[in-house]
């Protein structure tokens, strides 16, 4: 009865943050994923907004609680507070704006500073519908993602291209990491519970697979 109201009907709750420069389309990515909406007239985000969507991964219901942060410098103090306890992050850049891509470095550093150590990170090149205004070649971005062990997808919130896939890939990666982590803990608990657990997740194979998908014009 009340479980409905509070949405208890899920197996896992993942907190995911959306970060990236102002105007790269974070809010529209979120609204596309959670409500399948797109707004040309969207205003710049103040502070943070958040939305949830429950998806199923490997038979488990996973509730993704996605925090959409403001990209503007002036809200930086507010937004970094929201990195805590996030298990996943999407760094978004605008493929037509080189500066937003260059700033990914900065966002990654900030994320590592403020978030948990083994947070799963995805790199997203948004606005792929503006291919004719592209400033960031796909290959370079993919190489960069590979080097930093990030998932990589090019999306278009306007056309809804790859938006679902990008979020799904991240959530799946988090889920796999967590289930693997739990197994590790179970193994370790018998012998020495204090064993240093530093599961380094290698996400490198994912970007290639992802890209194969991204070229699909699927919806």
């Amino acid at each position, binding site marked *: 009865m009340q479980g409905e109201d509070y949405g208890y009907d899920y197996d896992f709750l993942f907190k995911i943050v959306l970060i990236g*420069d102002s105007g790269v389309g974070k809010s529209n990515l979120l609204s596309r994923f959670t409500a399948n909406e*797109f*707004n*040309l*007239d969207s*205003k710049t985000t*103040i*502070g943070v907004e958040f939305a949830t969507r429950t998806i199923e991964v490997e038979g488990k219901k996973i509730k993704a609680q996605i925090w959409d942060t403001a990209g503007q*410098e002036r809200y930086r103090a507010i937004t970094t507070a929201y990195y805590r306890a996030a298990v996943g992050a999407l760094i978004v850049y605008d493929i037509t704006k*080189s*500066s*937003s*891509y*260059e*700033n*990914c*470095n*900065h966002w*990654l*550093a*900030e994320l590592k500073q403020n978030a948990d150590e083994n947070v799963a990170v995805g790199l997203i090149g948004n606005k792929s*519908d*503006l*291919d*004719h*205004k*592209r*400033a*960031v*070649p796909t*290959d*370079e*971005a993919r*190489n*960069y993602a590979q*080097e*930093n062990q990030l998932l990589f997808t090019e999306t278009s919130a*306007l*056309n*809804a291209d790859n938006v679902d896939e990008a979020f799904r890939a991240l959530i799946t990666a988090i889920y796999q990491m967590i289930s693997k982590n739990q197994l590790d803990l179970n193994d370790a608990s018998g012998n020495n519970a204090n064993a240093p657990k530093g599961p380094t997740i290698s996400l490198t194979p994912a970007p290639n697979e992802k890209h194969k998908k991204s*070229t*699909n*014009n*699927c*919806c």
Partner: protein
Amino acid sequence: MADQEESKRISLQVTSLSTQLIESIDKQSQLEEQLLVAKKTISTQQNIANSYNELKQELQSLKLQYETDKTKFKKQEEICADAEKKVATLNQEIEDLTASLFDEANNMVADARKEQNAVEILNSKLKEQLKEKDLLLDTLSMQLKNLKNVLYKFENDFNSSKNVSLSDSATSSTTSIDRSTTNLTSVNDNSLSFQGVLFSPLLHSLRYDVPLYTEYLKFLAVLPQCENLQQTTSESKLLRRLINYEISPVLRLDNASGVGWLVKRNLMNLMMEGLVSIEPISGINETYRTGYSSPSIPDSPEVENKDSHLFSRPVNSPPVAMVEPCAFCGENRNDILEHGRLYIFKTYQKLENGKNELTNQFPVCHYCLLKLRQVCEIFAFLRSLRSGAWHLEKVALASIHQGKVNAYSEVTKASRPKMKSKRLSIFQGLKQSQSSTPIIENGPQFADKNGLPTTNIQRSWARLSQLRASLQWSHIGVWSLDESVATDIAPSTDISKAKSFEEEQGLGIASNNIPVPITHEEDETFDFEADTANSISVDETVNGIRHTDQSSDDIGDHNEKTNEKTATDLQGKNEEKKSKKIEPQHSRQPSQSSTVLNDNKESAESAHDTHASSEEPSDLLETYQDLSADLEPESEKPENLDNSDEEDSFNDAKDVVN
């Protein structure tokens, strides 16, 4: 006598003695009898005494037995008393035990009840707390929302405070003279912030009564049913005119030396379909663009920056260019960055499995980059209109088929009188005067009193005008369009507001949702007719050169003429009809099979488009013939189009051979 006396005495004595003997015998017998009786009684007495003794003995023994029994009994009694005592104590004990048991049980139940009660109380308290928290959360989020709105407003106010006089003019001025004077002051006010603006008409000076706008409405009406932009050409001349008069003269694909004729024919189509990409050879090139400022990284460590490989080149690498001349303008100077070919124009082919395959790559100089990007931007915008993101009001192509016009107008009159008075007034004009010129009461085409667009259709038109203007600027020759000042034109998402605008048009209602033109526009009142006149002079020279095509052009002209006539007739009858409901459209997904199948036809059409310049004079002529044009069957048109396309593609091939 003494012997008688003695005999008498003896006789008397003997008689007395006899009697005495008799008496003694009697007595003896009596005594004997008595003795017998006594003996008898003695024997019985003896018997009795015997039995008595026996009895006595028996009694004795019985008494003994009794004694023993008595002791036994006493013992038993003692045991019994003992037992009874024990029973009593046991009973007591049992009673005690049961009492304590019950006590304990009661206590336990009481405890449990108490516990339950406590939990219940806690539960209800928690529930209350949860409710309170929810309420608090609601109010807080509401407050946050409101605060954010305040912040937005504040930001807007801050932005427009730079431009106070202009917004004043938008709200207060009523006559055009007033407006122009206030604008003048506003320009003076802003001369500091926008110093060196080249040319910038304002949003409210944009016209919505140009013929191309009608074509745009037609375009919007048929767009939802079309799979690609190309298909709209059968109903709307928008695309054709944009390509012929604005895009082709700017791109001058016929002069593009580096592009093969096969690609050249198909290029416009590819751009329309979005199957092209324009990107720098390396992302590092972007950092050298005019007006580019490196992103400020205040707190990220420098070391990290150096280590990362954002680009395939080192961070401080010079830009990468190609030696080959620009494929479009033949630029081959290597003196400055803008002359260098820093960008690649790629064309793709849609494969059957939905993937895109790279087909061609061309080096592009900065000048052509701007032009190509602007062209693609126009097409991308037109494509995006299908996605529903613009929340366009519904436009219906009222009765495409001739003869149904009257019936339709009557239906609308009966069912939607209010709408008719505002929007469909054109029907009345048609019925009364039989004129095909659109007569618009209330001037809905003129937006609101301040000239600001009131509908999302008008906003999208303004956006299109902006894009067309920037294309012209890229043609005129600016280094960069990035720094240009331009208003962000976006649809109003408030549907109810949009509706009220529709109904109260001409009453000059200003809305917060409409961006106030705070900056100087790029050329938006780009005069369509003047432009055609310009392009004619250019195209005439083309005609002069290509006079070998004349015969086939005539055929094309003829076909075009019939098209023009029917289309312009429609112009008179087709109304922009705005439904109250805005239908969201799904994003555009052209089916691959049809694309592949149509490929030949499309390439032919694109050939037609690139050579359409030869049609322009007649087209212009027909714009003025529109008024007197007759109704003609619509059904012929598609075949005509195909014919002319085939002819043109044939000519095209001939050209190349020549």
